[in-house]
C-alpha cells in the first residue's frame, strides 16, 4: 500500500478555503518568547547536573534559566513596541485594535511564512489594521476581547508584589524538590542555547560540578535557580492537588525573592492555588489586579479565567 498524496501536495482537489486553512494549521507554532519561557521553567524541573541532591546545582544548570529570563526581557521590549502601535491604532477604532489583540492571542506563524523575528515597521502595522473588516465579520473575535479601555505597554520592570492574606502555614520548612536520582545525567550541562542571548558562555559549562562551588560570582544566578525551584515545587504541589502546600511555597518564594524574575508566574500560580483552595473571591480580586498591572503578560490568559 502506498500513501495517498497529501492534500496540500495535490491542490487540485482542494477548495481554496481548505487550502488556506490547512496552510495556516501547519504554520502554527508557539512564539519564541513562549518557547523560551517553557525552556526556563523546564530547566528548573530537570535533575541538577551535578548529580547531587538539591544543593548540587552547578552554574551550568542555571544557564538555561537565566538565558531565558534575559531573552524574555528582550522580547518584552519588542512587545511593548508592538502594543504601543496597537494603542495608536486604537485611537482610530477601539474595537478594531482590541480585535487585533484578541486575535493575536492565537498562535504564531513560523518564520517560513512570516518573519516573526523582525519587528513590524509602523507603516505595515497600519496597513494591517485598517484592512480588517470594520463590520460584522470581525465581530466574533471581539466578543472575547478585554473590555478594559487601556492597553498599556508591558511593564519591563519586575512586577509589584501581590500581597496575600495569610492563608497558609507559611513558616513550615519545606524541602524544595526531591531531586530525581540522576544516573548518566550527571554530565548533562543545561547550557544556554546558542541562539539565545546567554549571560554566560555555554561552552564553558563544567562537565562535573565542582565539589565546593564558589559562591560569590554566581550568587544572582543561584538565586534565580532557587526561585525557579520554589516556583516549580509550588506548581507541582498545585497540580498534585495540594493547593495549601503550593501557597506556602509561593509565600516562601515571595518573601525570599519579592521582585524575582518569576514574580508574574508566582502571582499567577498563587491566584490558581487560592481558587483551588476555595478562596475564589480573593483569587478573583488578585486576578483582576494582576490583569490591570500586566495586561499582556505571558500568564494573562491563564489568569483571566479567574477574574470573572
Amino acid at each position: 500500500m502506498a500513501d495517498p498524496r497529501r492534500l496540500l501536495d495535490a491542490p487540485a482537489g482542494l477548495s481554496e478555503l481548505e487550502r488556506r486553512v490547512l496552510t495556516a494549521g501547519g504554520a502554527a507554532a508557539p512564539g519564541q518568547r513562549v518557547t523560551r519561557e517553557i525552556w526556563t521553567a523546564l530547566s528548573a524541573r530537570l535533575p541538577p547536573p551535578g548529580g547531587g541532591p538539591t544543593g548540587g546545582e552547578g552554574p551550568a544548570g542555571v544557564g538555561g534559566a537565566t538565558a531565558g529570563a534575559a531573552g524574555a526581557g528582550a522580547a518584552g521590549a519588542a512587545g511593548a513596541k508592538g502594543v504601543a502601535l496597537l494603542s495608536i491604532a486604537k485611537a482610530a477604532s477601539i474595537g478594531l485594535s482590541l480585535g487585533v489583540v484578541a486575535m493575536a492571542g492565537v498562535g504564531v506563524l513560523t518564520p517560513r511564512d512570516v518573519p516573526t523575528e523582525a519587528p513590524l515597521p509602523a507603516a505595515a502595522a497600519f496597513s494591517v489594521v485598517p484592512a480588517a473588516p470594520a463590520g460584522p465579520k470581525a465581530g466574533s473575535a471581539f466578543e472575547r476581547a478585554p473590555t478594559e479601555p487601556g492597553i498599556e505597554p508591558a511593564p519591563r520592570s519586575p512586577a509589584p508584589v501581590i500581597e496575600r492574606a495569610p492563608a497558609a502555614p507559611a513558616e513550615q520548612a519545606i524541602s524544595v524538590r526531591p531531586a530525581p536520582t540522576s544516573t548518566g545525567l550527571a554530565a548533562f550541562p543545561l547550557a544556554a542555547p546558542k541562539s539565545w542571548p546567554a549571560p554566560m558562555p555555554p561552552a564553558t559549562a563544567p562537565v562535573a560540578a565542582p565539589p565546593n562551588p564558589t559562591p560569590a560570582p554566581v550568587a544572582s544566578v543561584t538565586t534565580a535557580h532557587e526561585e525557579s525551584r520554589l516556583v516549580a515545587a509550588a506548581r507541582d504541589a498545585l497540580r498534585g492537588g495540594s493547593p495549601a502546600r503550593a501557597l506556602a511555597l509561593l509565600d516562601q518564594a515571595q518573601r525570599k525573592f519579592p521582585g524575582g524574575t518569576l514574580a508574574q508566574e508566582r502571582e499567577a500560580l498563587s491566584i490558581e492555588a487560592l481558587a483551588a483552595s476555595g478562596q475564589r473571591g480573593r483569587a478573583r480580586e488578585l486576578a483582576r489586579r494582576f490583569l490591570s498591572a500586566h495586561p499582556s503578560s505571558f500568564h494573562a490568559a491563564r489568569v483571566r479565567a479567574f477574574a470573572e
Partner: protein
Amino acid sequence: MARPGSCPLYDTGHDFHAVYEAHVGFVWRSLRRLGAPESSLNDAVQDVFLVVHRRLPDFAPHAKLTTWLFRICLNTAKDYRRRAHARREVLDEGPLDAMADPREDAVLALERHEDLRLFEASLQKLDLDQRAVFMLFEIEKLTGEEIAEALEIPLGTVYSRLRLARKAFSRIVVQQAALRDSVARAGGR
C-alpha cells in the same frame, strides 16, 4: 551523519536543547490539538520534555523521534484531559483563545488568524482517532508507516481513518466558515 549505538541525543546538553528547539513546536501543536486544556498547555509541554529527558536512554536509535514524541504527547494530553475533567475545569471557551503571547503577534495579518482559528475549530470536531491521523499526515507530514507506529495501529487503519477524516474535515470546514460568518452577522453592528 553517524549515529553511534547509544542515543546521540543523550550525550550532551546541547543535544537535549537541540531536540527541544527542533520539536517544541510539534509537541505544542500536538498537545493543543489532542485536547490538553489551553490553560495548562505550557505545563503539558514541560511534562512531555521531562519524560523525553528521563527516557532518552531507552529511546531506540532506529526509531523516529517524532513518532516517539507523539506517543508521549498522547499520554500527556490524556492525563491533562482527565485531570481537567476531574476538577470540572472549564476546558476552553475557544480553541485558540488563550495562546499566551499577544505581543509578537502584532506582526501577523488578521486573515492568517482567521484561517488558523478555522483550522483548529474544524479539527476539534473530528473524533480524536481521526484527528491524530489527520494532523500527523496532512500537517506534520509523517508517512503512513510512521503514523501506524506512533499510534500502534495497523497501516490499513491509518488509511481508513485518514479517508474518513478528510471527508469529515472538508465538510466541517465549510460548516465552520458558515457558522463564523453567521455569528459575525448576528453580532455585527
